[in-house]
């Protein structure tokens, strides 16, 4: 059963995306990596639910693969 919300859930998607990119403007790769790591930890703590976190990690790993390789791996 999918616990991670995979339908659109952010109001003002373009504004959110611009804010996310804005966070990294003018940063070095090292600084950006550090910010991303902190952001992941903050969000993970906010979610808290280990099942949701594990599923999100699996989905994040699988989504980078070609579509035929992930058929059946990402339930929607």
């Amino acid at each position, binding site marked *: 059963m999918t616990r991670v919300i995979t339908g659109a859930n952010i109001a003002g998607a373009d504004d959110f995306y611009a804010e996310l990119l804005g966070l990294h403007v003018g940063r070095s790769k090292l600084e950006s*990596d*550090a910010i*991303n*790591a*902190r952001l*992941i*930890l*903050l969000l993970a*703590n906010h979610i808290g639910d280990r099942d949701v976190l594990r599923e999100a990690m699996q989905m994040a790993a699988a989504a980078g693969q070609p579509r035929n390789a992930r058929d059946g791996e990402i339930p929607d």
Partner: protein
Amino acid sequence: MQKIFDTPLYPYHRSPDQDAPASQRHPVVIIGAGPVGLAAAIDLAQQDVPVVVLDENDKVSFGSRAICFSQRTLEIVDRMGGAGPMLEKGVLWDAGRVFFGDRQIYDFNLLPDADHKHPAFINLQQYYLENYLVDRVREIEAAGKPIELRGRNKLAAIGEHDRHVRLEIDTPEGPYNLEAEWLIACDGANSPARRMLGLDFVGRVFEDNFLIADTIMEADFPTERWFWFDPPFNRGQSALLHKQPDNVWRIDFQLGWDIDRGEELKEANIRRRLHAMLGENAKFDLEWCSIYTFQCRRMAAFRQGRVLFAGDSAHQVSPFGARGANSGIQDADNLAWKLQLVLNGTAPETLMDTYSTERVYAADENIRHSTRSTDFITPKSETSRAFRDAVLDLAEHHEFARPLVNSGRLSEPSVYDGSRLNGPDCADLPASLRVGAAAMDAPVAGGWLLDRLGGGFRLLAIDQDLPTAPDFGAVEVGVVELSAVDWPEFRQRYLGAARSALYLIRPDQHVAARWLGFDANAVRAALETAMATATAQKGTT
């Protein structure tokens, strides 16, 4: 001043065995008079199993080595009658600070646990523990217990036979032979016994070096554990400062892999590092310095025929989390009662296989914990470093990130989940004391629960009437009847929401089975399971 580790504590004396016409056979011979070998010997001798301990040396170990002893170790040594001096000498601490770069990111205070007889841990140099255990050996020897400690007796060869081993021992007066029904190899990480038997020892080597400096100083540092990630005085590495008795401070510097050991061990270089850390005006003496690298690995099995491996000879972990000596003491605790039952014919020899399975399980748990600490302290990739640093940066500002900081996790006794010695469990009782767990201490009428239990099999009846003098067959079971009504911690830990319960406790104080109500047949069956005498084999462990 002569140091304790300069004095021969068990000097060589000629044994009658060396002049016997034929080699003498002993029920149990232990190789190695370190904390694990001594603990096993005391435990066995107190149960009247004759035991001979051989050590190639005649002194306690040099340098502090293991310095942090856990509550479970204190409980076990207390049962052996040796915890008093440990508690008297040991340093109690409950506060600590964590630094990242040039700043303190947080401090912590582990609230003292007043409802256990023993503290969560104490700091004490290993040589003191060994000294106290040797004192205890002398006490029980004087009281007539069958225990013998032979210094400068070095194992030279082992011959394996079906029902015994044959040993060749070197002494200052030449070699002699001995036989043992059981051999316990507590001869350390480089175990000669393991090597002589050609047994493999696989695992992960960590590519890192640590400099330990035992530093004597009259410092104003509080009695706290200080841990530095990436400090200015040791860039890119870590450092630890921890208080021991006698104003000795254990200082650990992570050095990295590619180092010149000879250079690093020069006193001038060590002093330069310490001044960078403690300040240019710090005054100190160096008691002991060493460079170590560590491995996380274990033997495939801790029993090989009539040879049992315990402590570092069987398994090694990183030093983070104080799991080396503490898990070795628990090996001894697991081993002694089983060997006693096998030697007196009550239990079958296969009971010793469960020593291996239960302690392999514990070793895997310890290796997992200490590997995780190592991976946090020494990130293995750019990404793992990014997350590690992210945790530390967040921990400075947000409480949520602090549990993720891992500079060593407190050692707690393993729960032997899935052991074939486990009897029936009861889901209505608290899960933390499930079958396989070590009994938890609690205040009870007349003192502390673990003191009331002591050693041997025990049937702990809580708010429950038992028939007078129930008979459980082959083995003696002490009945301990207690009420939890006026004892909230005892009630919370052992009953939860239940009103009464019955726990069958093994001699190492792990829970063997538990029920809500008494049934003599069920207790008898659980006892047979706990001693591996039950004919039906269940489980896989």
